[in-house]
Structures are given as structure tokens and as C-alpha cells.
């Protein structure tokens, strides 16, 4: 099974954003749009926070 942190993050973000977009929108086009935005936001935010935390001694 895959063990790369970033890959797991992307898979998790993809599944969660798909579920939320399906829950929150009725039209498939709007679902796809919201899902893509959420996926991008998840990944980007996690990436930025990860780099910000990189120098911390934890």
C-alpha cells in the first residue's frame, strides 16, 4: 500500500471533497466545481502549513 505522506493527503482530500461536494450541491456541474475548489484548498493549505511547520523542532 502507498505510504507517501503527500499521496495519502491527496487521496484523503479527494475523497472528503467528493463527499462534501455531493452533500452540499445538487447539480453535477456545481458538485464538480465545488469539489475541485475544496480539493485544491485542502492540498494547498496542507502544503503551506507543512512548510511553515518545517523549521519547528517537533
Amino acid at each position, binding site marked *: *500500500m502507498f*505510504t507517501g505522506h503527500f499521496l*495519502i493527503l491527496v*487521496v*484523503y482530500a479527494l*475523497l*472528503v471533497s*467528493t*463527499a*462534501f461536494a*455531493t*452533500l452540499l450541491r445538487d447539480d*453535477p456541474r456545481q458538485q464538480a466545481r465545488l469539489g475541485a475548489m475544496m480539493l485544491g484548498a485542502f492540498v494547498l493549505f496542507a502544503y503551506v502549513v507543512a512548510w511553515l511547520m518545517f523549521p519547528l523542532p517537533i
Partner: protein
Amino acid sequence: MSTKTTTVERDKAGAEPGMLALVCLAAWLVPGGGHLLQRRMQKGIVFLIVLPLMFVIGLLLNGRLFPLEVSDPLVFLGAIANRGVGAPYVIARMLDLGAGLVTAVTYEYGNTFLMTAGLLNFLVILDAFDIAMGRK
């Protein structure tokens, strides 16, 4: 004569307790089942694929299915989250899966996938309930 119904009439029509219980039970047992039962096919199929897939990935990442231990509140809450996904949880327990491997590098990721699948299914159950009540 108009055939339009008011919100109150729709609520009354959708608020039969037996039907509500059936929808909620189906939604818990089979992720997306509540939507499929109410002919919301697209949503039902997406939930039917995404939530069990998330659960299976959690198991493959060596996540743990937590026991219902009241003495440890965090474990107890994790156990509730795990059980939210319904049939996949029952099947995993029957197959003795979900023992968890705490030394695995992906252990915490696996736990997160398993718990999130259950928690998302709780939201899906609420959505199915709202549809049955005529609110959506």
C-alpha cells in the same frame, strides 16, 4: 385546481415515522442507501463508492477499529466514529480486520480514514433524513 403542495403538506407527507426510520437505517447500513431508497441515484451512488472506499483504504493503511471503552473517552469517540459507516464496519469485524498496527508509519493515517468515513456517513444520514422530511 392547482396540484402544488405547500411545505407543510410536503412535511406531513414525508414525516411518517416508519419511513423515516427505514431511511435512516438504510442510510446507516449502506452508505448512500437512504438516498438510493428515495431515488436520489447520483448522490447515492457517489456515497456508495466514496465512503466504503475510504474505509477500505483506512484498513489497508493499518488503521484500527476501536473498541467501545467508556473509560477512555477518546477511544470511545473513535469507536462511535468507526461504527458510523455501517455494513463495511460489520463486515470488517466479522473478518477480524482492523486490528491496527501501531508501529506502521501509516497507522494514524489509517485511523483518520476509518473515522472520517464513519463521520461523513453520519452527515449523509442527516441529509437523507432531511430529504425524507421534505426539507430538500
